[in-house]
Structures are given as C-alpha cells and as structure tokens.
C-alpha cells in the first residue's frame, strides 16, 4: 500500500521523538544515532511519497480506517509532497548542523529533551503539510507552536521575554483560526477539507462564511508573521539558539503559508476569494507592504541574523502575494518559492551560525577575510545570496520571475515594483558583506584559517548544491506543481 508513505513521513519523526523521550535519559549516548536513523528514514519516506505522487498524483490516507468526513484523513497532492520533501530535507540539514552547534549552546543534560521536542516539531510540520482536516490543523499548530516555544526559549536569558510574547501571539493566532473553523463548522457541519469544499459553495453568500474567512486568514497571518502581524518574529528568532533557528526559521512560517494556500485555494476556492469576496486588493496591499517594510528594516540592521529575519518578513510577502494574485503562474511561483526560500533560509541561518561560532559575531565587521578563513561557508554564502537576490539560474530568480509576471498580468504593478526594490536592496545588502570579507583586513588576533567542523561543512555544501540543483531543475518542478494547482486559476 503505497499510501503508507503519507503516514510514515509524519510518523517516523514522531516515533523517533517518542523513543528519544523514553530512552533519552537512560542512554544519552545513543541519542544521536537514534536521531540520525530517524531523520534518514524520514527523508526516505518523503522521497517515497514524492515518487508515489509523481505517478498517482494524489494519495489519501485514512486514520483508523474511517473514511472522511467521519475520520481524519491525510491528503497528499503533489504540492504537499513537495512540502514534505522540503521539511525533511531542511530538517536533515538542520539536524546534522545541530550536532555540532547544540553543544555550544546548551548543557548536555538538556539534549535528550531538546531532541525529543525537535523531532516532534518536525513531525508537526510534516503533518501540517499533509493533513486534510481543518481541526487537525489547529491541533498541529499547537504541537508545532508549543515545541517551538520551548526550543526558542533555549536562547538563554534574553530569549524569555520575546518568547513569552510569541506564546501570546501564537496562541492568539491559533485561537483566531479556531474561531474561524467554528464559523465554518457551524454552517457546514463538517471539518474535512474536501467535504468542506463541496459544501461551501451552497453557503458562499453567508456572512458567517465571510467572518470565518477573515478570522482564519488573520489567524494564519499572525502565525506566519505577515506584516503588520510580524512584530513577534524577529525578536524571538534573533535571540534563539542557532540549532533551533535552523529548523524554525525556514519552516515555521513557510508551512503556515502553505496552510493558507490550502485553506484559501482548496477549501474556500479561488473563485470565492477573487469573485465573491473581492479581497484581492486588500491582500495585495498587505503583501506589498510586507515586502517594503521588511526591506526597509533590512537596510537598518548590521547583524546577519537580524537581517535574515527581516528578509523572511519580506519573503512572506512574496508568497502571500503570489497566492492572492490568483494567476496560475503566480501560484506556481509562490509554491516554488516556499520550498526555495526554505532552502535559502536554512543556508543563511547556518552561515550565520558558523560565523557566530567561529568568528565570534555576525556583524558586518566580524566577517572580514571570511574567504580566507572560512572558505566553505563563504562560498555557500555567495551562492545563497545570489539566490536571494534573484540571479539566474538560482531558484530565487524563477519564483520572482513568475511572481512579477503574475503581477503584470493582473495589474498589480505596485507588487512587482516592491519585489524589484527588495531584490535591489538585497544586492546592496549582501554586497556590503562581500565587501566586508573581500576587502577588510582583520587585526591578526584570530587564526588565519579556521576550519569549519564537518558537521558544519556537510550541510552547507549539501544546501548549496541543493540550491543550484533546485534552480536548474525548475522546469521539472514547474510541471510537477502545475498538476496540483487549485481550480479556477487564470
């Protein structure tokens, strides 16, 4: 039964976590092997899922054998399979990275608990990508959020206040979402996404559905840190330990964008969004503002980690804009960008982590002579920066290409301009770093060549190669995503 892959993709990290939690204290030595086995199997499962949907296009999995809408189902189409692949790919990189990074940040006695939460978080992300039940999404939000709170709070003294705010904002977002689900439920009596999509058109013109739409989207916006609900994100992420960040920063917000696509595109349908509600102008304004604001903040910051956070703010704007443009190409661009951006963000965060650990700081002034001192990191950094800027044939270029094209076709020129400004700012910004490590001389207190440990180098190299490969294989992904798009796209 090939649909078993759908469960295994989320089940393997889940069981890994439980096993870690059960034996972690008794046998801390085995922890990293359990984790490595788990993550390898999970990557295999996601590849299996991917190959299954490549042939079958669609996989359903019924928990407990109960058919929806009675039971809870996993529904995997090609886009969600891509998301699963993304989560496991990034998680694998982040895991290898954390093997070396975590001991720098956390006493060994906390590691078993840390990794248990880590794997629960991974399985939560995967499950969010594949679940077909709107209430299940809420529960999974909480699984991810709670484990995320704990992992983020490990940044030490300075992390507590921002994490507390995140607890409030995250719960608020989830609550909004839940009320929205309540309104949907009260008008339809079902929680299954596919069933909802069938029933909803009969009540499209109800005010409660409008309310539900507003609440769900606002809830998701809070969760994904879209402007103006982004306030919690940069602070909490900057103070978090790098090993948490490698997992949270690339996936935490992106997966919410995917849930948004799923809810807006498949449950409410694109038609409802564009024709009946006509919320497109508002949403596009928000997306454009997110990009502009993120970009503005980026310019004012000097520390790499902080800069990455605001890049995320503006990238979220890209994706949300792409979804709400409602053009076929723009949605493909948005989906492709979710995966591409996850890969870019994880690389950036890892680079920031290496720089922080090896050079003692991540401000521009600290990266002097990086080409000499950390060659692998420097090259990975250049590659990922090119992708963020949008230089072909990097993935960032293609998604931007599609998004701008979509903006032109539907007449949102402001969005296109914002995208371009963001790219230009990225050029300016990253070249400030390049200049830093190309031209600046260090005072010779530091050793001339610092070798990155293997646990840093491997994921960096893999991520850089992955980025290039993902960009070069764009035509494959274009066709792959296209077949799973929601109906009603222009």
């Amino acid at each position, binding site marked *: 039964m090939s649909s078993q892959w759908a469960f295994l993709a989320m089940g393997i990290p889940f069981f890994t976590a439980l096993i870690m939690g059960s034996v972690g204290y008794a046998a801390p030595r085995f922890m990293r092997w359990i984790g490595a086995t788990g993550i390898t199997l999970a990557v295999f499962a996601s590849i299996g899922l991917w190959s299954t949907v490549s042939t079958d296009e669609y996989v359903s999995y019924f928990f407990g054998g109960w058919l929806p809408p009675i039971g809870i189902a996993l529904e995997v189409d090609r886009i969600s399979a891509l998301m699963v692949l993304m989560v496991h790919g990034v998680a694998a990189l982040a895991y290898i990275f954390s093997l070396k990074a975590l001991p720098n940040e956390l006493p060994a006695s906390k590691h078993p608990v840390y990794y248990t939460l880590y794997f629960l978080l991974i399985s939560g992300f995967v499950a969010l990508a594949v679940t077909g039940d709107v*209430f299940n999404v809420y*529960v999974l939000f*909480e699984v991810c*959020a*709670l484990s995320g*709170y*704990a992992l983020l*709070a490990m940044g030490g*003294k*300075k992390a*507590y*206040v921002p*994490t*507390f705010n995140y*607890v*409030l904002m995250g*719960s*608020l977002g989830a*609550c909004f979402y*839940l*009320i929205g689900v*309540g309104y949907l*439920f*009260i008008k339809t009596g079902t929680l299954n996404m596919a069933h909802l999509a069938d029933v909803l058109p009969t009540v499209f013109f109800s005010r409660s559905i409008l309310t539900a739409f507003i609440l769900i989207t606002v809830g998701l916006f809070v969760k994904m840190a879209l402007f103006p609900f982004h306030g919690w994100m940069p602070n909490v992420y900057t103070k978090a330990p790098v090993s948490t960040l490698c997992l949270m920063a690339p996936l935490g917000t992106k997966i919410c964008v995917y849930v948004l696509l799923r809810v807006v595109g498949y449950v409410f349908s694109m038609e409802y969004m564009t024709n009946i509600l006509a919320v497109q102008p508002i949403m596009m304004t928000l997306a454009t503002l997110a990009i502009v604001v993120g970009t503005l903040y980026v310019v004012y910051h000097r520390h790499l980690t902080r800069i990455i956070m605001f890049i995320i703010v503006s990238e979220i704007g890209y994706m949300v804009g792409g979804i709400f443009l409602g053009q076929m190409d723009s949605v493909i661009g948005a989906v492709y960008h979710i995966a591409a951006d996850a890969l870019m963000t994880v690389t950036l965060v890892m680079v920031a982590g290496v720089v922080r650990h090896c050079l003692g700081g991540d401000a521009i002034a600290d990266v002097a002579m990086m080409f000499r001192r950390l060659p692998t990191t420097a090259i990975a950094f250049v590659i990922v920066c090119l992708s963020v800027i949008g230089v072909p044939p990097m993935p960032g270029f293609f998604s931007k290409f599609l998004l701008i094209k979509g903006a032109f076709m539907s007449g949102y020129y402001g969005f296109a301009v914002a995208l371009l400004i963001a790219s230009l700012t990225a050029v300016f910004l990253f070249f400030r770093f390049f200049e830093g490590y190309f031209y600046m001389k260090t005072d010779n207190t530091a050793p001339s060549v610092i070798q990155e440990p293997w646990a840093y180098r491997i994921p960096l190299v893999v991520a850089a190669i992955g980025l290039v490969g993902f960009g070069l294989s764009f035509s494959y992904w274009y066709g792959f995503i296209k077949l799973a798009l929601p109906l009603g796209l222009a």
Partner: protein
Amino acid sequence: MTTLSYSVAIILMTMGLWAMLSKKNLIKKLMGLAIFQTGIILFFISMGAKEGATIPILDHHGYGGIYSDDYANPLTQILMLTAIVVGVATLGLGLALARKIYAHYGSFNEDDILANLREPNE
C-alpha cells in the same frame, strides 16, 4: 437564548483579547488568554447543544433505536476537550516563562521588564 449564548461567548473572547493586548501584567495576560479560550469553548458547545437532548452517552446500549435528536452533539465536545487540554498546556508554558522572566527582571510588569531589558544592552 440563541443570541445570548453566542453573544456571551463573543463578549468573553473580546474580554480575553482586551486583557492580552492592554494589560501590562504578564499573569493578567495569561488570564486573558484563558478567558479567550473558554469563550471559544462556549461558542463551540453552544453550537452543538440541542433543545431537549440529553448527554451524549447512550442509555440501554442502543437497543430500541438511537435517534440523533436525543443526544447532544459529541463532535463539538471532543473538539473542545482537545482545546481545553491544549489551553492548559499553553498556560503551563506561559507560566514557566513568566516565572523565568520574574527571576531575571524581578517584575511581571511589561514596562519594567522592557526598561530593564534596555539598560544592560546600552
């Protein structure tokens, strides 16, 4: 009754939201969150209630026919069971963080904490 139960739910949610946004005290914020969540639960329970129906536990083990009108809606209830448990988990985490914050800054007051936070940095 229709508007009343929904309105009370909405009042509770709004009250919770108000506390979360405007109160300066961290503990009060968490209380706001708790009230917000109970508001949601009330909202769901209200929608599952049925006039003249009994609790969703079958008597005489289903012999003699089961009619859905006779029993309150079990689905909304289990959803809310989940919500309650999630709520208490969140509350616990929030309290743990609040406790840590108090240990470091000596106050639950947001303004004091922020003032404290800035000083050592600059």
